[in-house]
C-alpha cells in the first residue's frame, strides 16, 4: 500500500464490485453504442460498416490525402453495400431505415482516418440528398435520388458564396425567370464535393429583393452550359475531399429542375440544418473516441523516465480530461439524436451538441498531439504513431462548418430571449 495506493484502489480495485442500487440485479455493461436510441440491431449494422471501412477506406486514406482526392468509385462501393441510402425508402433503392442507421454510418466513417473522405461521403449522404428526397417531385427523385443512392450520381449542396456564409439572406447568386426556366448568374464557394458533383443543389435568389423570402433551390447539373468549377480550393485539412468554387455564367436551368417551391428556399435550408449538425456532432464524437484510443495506446507504450508516459500523473489526468470531454459530448449528442429521431423539436439540444462537440474535438485532438509529442506532429509512422497531425487539422473545421460556434451561440442566446 505505497504512495497513491488508495487512488489506485479506487480506480481499479472495486471496478468489479457487484452490488447495485438498481431494481434489476446483475446485468452486463451496456456499450455506449447500444444505449438509447441505439439497439442491438444497430450493433450489427455497425459491425458491418466497420469492417467495410477497415477494408475499403482506411488502407487508402494516406494515399488519398496525398493526392488531394479520393476516387469516385468509393461511392460505387458504398452503394454496393447499400450504405448511400440507409435512411431512404426501398422504392428509391434505399434500405428503408431511418436517421439512426445513418448515425451509425457517420460514426463509423470517422474511423477511416481521413476527415476528408468522411466529409466527402458525408456531403452526399447528409446534406445534398436529403433536400432532394424531402422536397423533390417524383420525377426529380427518379432522376437524381435513385442514381445518387446507387452511387452513379454524386450530389453536392451549394449555399455559401464568396460574399456570404452564415448570413444566408445575403445570397446574391441570381436566377432570372425566362421562358421555360431560369438563367443563373453568380458564384458559390467552399462546396464540398463540388469538383466531382454531377448535381449541385444550389440556393439562388429568385426575387429582386432576395432575403429569406426570395430564395429558391435549383438542381444544377454538370455539363449545363455556363456552369463550371472555377477553382479546386487548397485547405488546412480535409485534404482528401474536393472543395470547389463554382461559377455560373448565364446557365439556363429548366423549370423541371426547381426543387421545392419558388421563393420558399429558406425553409429547405432550415429543414436539414438540424440533421447536418447532429451528423457533425456524431462525427466529432467518433473522432474523439478514436483519438482517445490512439492516445491510450501510445501512452502505454511510450516510455520516458523509466515508465510509460501514461503512468505519469500529468499525462494520466490529461487523458482523463480527454475522456470526460468525449463523454460529455456523447451524452449531449445522443440526447439530441434521440429527440430528433422521436420527431421532437430539438433545435436547442442539437445546437448545443454541435457547439460543444466541435470545440471539444479540437481540444481533444490538441491534447492527443501534446501527448504524442513529436510523433504526433509528424505524419503517421507505421507501427509507431497514428496520424494525429491530420486529425488536428481536420477537426478544426468543426467550429466553422455547419454554422460557426458564434452562430450557434446566437441561436442559443436568442432562444433564451436575449
Amino acid at each position, binding site marked *: 500500500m505505497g504512495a497513491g495506493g*488508495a487512488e489506485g*484502489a479506487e480506480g481499479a480495485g472495486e471496478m468489479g464490485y457487484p452490488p447495485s442500487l438498481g431494481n434489476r440485479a446483475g446485468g452486463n455493461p451496456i456499450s455506449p453504442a447500444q444505449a438509447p436510441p441505439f439497439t442491438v440491431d444497430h450493433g450489427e449494422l455497425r459491425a458491418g460498416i466497420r469492417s467495410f471501412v477497415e477494408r475499403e477506406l482506411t488502407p487508402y486514406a494516406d494515399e488519398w490525402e496525398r493526392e488531394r482526392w479520393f476516387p469516385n468509385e468509393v461511392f460505387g462501393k458504398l452503394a454496393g453495400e447499400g450504405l448511400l441510402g440507409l435512411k431512404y425508402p426501398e422504392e428509391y433503392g434505399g434500405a428503408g431505415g431511418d436517421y439512426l442507421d445513418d448515425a451509425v454510418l457517420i460514426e463509423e466513417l470517422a474511423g477511416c482516418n481521413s476527415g476528408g473522405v468522411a466529409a466527402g461521403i458525408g456531403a452526399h449522404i447528409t446534406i445534398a440528398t436529403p433536400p432532394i428526397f424531402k422536397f423533390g417531385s417524383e420525377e426529380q427523385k427518379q432522376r437524381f435520388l435513385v442514381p445518387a443512392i446507387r452511387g452513379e450520381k454524386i450530389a453536392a449542396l451549394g449555399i455559401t458564396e464568396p460574399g456570404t456564409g452564415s448570413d444566408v439572406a445575403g445570397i446574391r447568386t441570381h436566377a432570372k425567370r425566362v421562358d421555360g426556366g431560369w438563367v443563373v448568374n453568380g458564384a458559390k464557394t467552399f462546396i464540398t464535393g463540388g469538383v466531382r458533383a454531377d448535381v449541385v443543389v444550389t440556393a439562388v435568389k429568385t426575387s429582386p429583393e432576395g432575403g429569406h423570402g426570395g430564395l429558391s433551390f435549383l438542381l444544377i447539373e454538370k455539363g449545363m452550359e455556363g456552369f463550371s468549377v472555377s477553382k479546386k480550393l487548397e485547405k488546412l485539412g480535409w485534404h482528401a475531399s474536393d472543395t470547389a468554387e463554382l461559377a455560373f455564367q448565364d446557365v439556363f436551368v429548366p423549370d423541371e429542375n426547381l426543387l421545392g417551391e419558388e421563393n420558399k428556399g429558406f425553409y429547405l435550408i432550415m429543414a436539414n440544418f*438540424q440533421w447536418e449538425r447532429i451528423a457533425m456532432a456524431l462525427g466529432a464524437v467518433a473522432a474523439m473516441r478514436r483519438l482517445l484510443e490512439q492516445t491510450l495506446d501510445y501512452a502505454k507504450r511510450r516510455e520516458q523516465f523509466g515508465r*510509460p508516459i501514461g503512468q505519469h500523473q500529468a499525462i494520466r489526468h490529461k487523458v*482523463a480530461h480527454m475522456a470526460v470531454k468525449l463523454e460529455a459530448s456523447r451524452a449531449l449528442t445522443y440526447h439530441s439524436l434521440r429527440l430528433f429521431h422521436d420527431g421532437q423539436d*430539438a433545435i436547442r439540444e442539437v445546437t448545443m451538441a454541435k457547439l460543444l462537440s466541435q470545440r471539444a474535438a479540437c481540444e481533444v485532438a490538441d491534447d492527443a498531439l501534446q501527448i504524442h509529442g513529436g510523433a504526433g506532429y509528424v505524419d503517421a509512422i507505421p507501427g509507431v504513431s497514428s496520424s494525429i497531425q491530420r486529425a488536428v487539422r481536420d477537426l478544426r473545421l468543426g467550429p466553422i462548418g455547419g454554422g460557426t460556434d458564434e452562430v450557434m451561440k446566437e441561436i442559443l442566446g436568442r432562444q433564451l430571449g436575449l
Partner: protein
Amino acid sequence: MATAENVLKPDFGSSSKHFIFEEHHDRLRESIRSFVERELAPHAEEWEEQTFPDSVIARMGELGFLGLSMPEQYGGQGGDYFCNLVLSEEMTRADCAGLTMGVAVHTDMAMPPIHLFGSEEQKQEWLVPAIKGEKILCLGITEPDAGSDVAGIKTRAVRDGDDYVINGSKTYITNGHRADVIVLVTKTDPDAGYDGFSLFLVPMDAPGVIREQRLKKLGMHASDTALLAFQDVRVPATAMLGQEGKGFYHIMWELQGERLIGAAGCVAGAQRCFDKTLEYALEREAFGRPIGKFQAIRHKFADMATKIEAGRQMTYMTAWRFANGEYPVREISMAKLFTAQMACEVTDECLQIHGGAGYMKEYGIERAWRDMRLNRIGAGSDEIMLDVIGRSYGL
C-alpha cells in the same frame, strides 16, 4: 413532398423530457417542489445563520421524501433510483445548499449502505426510523490525517469479547452534531491493507463519542459540520455493518451513489443560478439596453446553457446505467468531475454578469458561488476523479 408549411420550424417552448423519467416522476417532482418552495425556501436566510433545524428531517420523513427508493417494508416508497435524482434536483429550489447537503447525507450517503449491507435487526433499528425522519444519519470516512487516501484511516476497532472498542477521530462530518447514528469507517485489521476495514453503526450517544468543534466554513453555512472523537467507544459486534474486512469496498460502493447524486445537485444548482441570472440580465440595463442583449453576455449564456445540458445528460445516462444494474465507476467519476467543475464555472460567470450586485449578499449569487465550490472537493476531489478515470483506462 415537404412544403414550407410542414417543415420543422423552431418551437423553443417545447419541452424535451428525458426518457428516464415517467409521469409518476413528474408528479413526485411537483409534490417536492411545492413542499420546498412553501416550507423550506422561506427560511433559507435564517438557516444560513444558524443551520437548519432537525424538524426539517422529521417533516420530510412525514411526507415520505426520505425513503423514495427504499422498499415499502421499511417504510420507503418503493420507487426507483430516479426518484432520488428528482429529490436532489428539487431540493436546490430551497436556495440553501447546506440544507440540501444535510438531507442528501441522510438519504443518499448514510442510508444506502444500511439498506444494502445491514442485517434485518439493523434495518429495523436504524433504517426504519431514518426513513420516518425520527433518527438522523451521518457518515464518517474522513479523518484529520486521511481524506481521499482512505488507506490512511487510523480509527481502530479492536475486538474485545462480544464487543468492539473504537478509538480515533473523524472530521468534516456533515450532520455530525445532529445525527443519532454514524456509519463509521474503521480499521479492524491494520495488516490486511484494503481488506482490513470494517463499517460500524455507532450510536452518537454511546459513551466516548465526543462531538468536538462545530467547524466554520467558506459556504454550506446551513449545514453542521463536525469534528468527532471516539474514545474507547464500546459497541457490540452486532453493530458491525456488512462484512468484516469489506469496509473499504462497501464505502467505495457508497461513494458512487453519493457522487452521482452530487452530480445531479450540481446540475440543478447551476441551472437555478443560471435562471436567476437570466432574469437579471433581461432587467438590468446599461448603455441603453438590457445587458443580456449585448452579444458578449448573450454568448456567455449560450455557453453556460450548453455546459449545464451536457452535465445533465451525462448524469441522466449514468444514472440510467446505475439503475439498470451496472456499476459504472468510470462514468460516475466523469459525471461528478464534469458537473462540479461546470457548476463552479457557471456560478462564477453568473457572479460576473451580476457585477457588484452579485458580490452583495442580497442576490444570493455570492452564496451559490461559495456553496458550489465544495463540489470540487467533497466526495472525492477533482484530482481523485481524474486519477480514477485515468486508471480505469489502465494508466
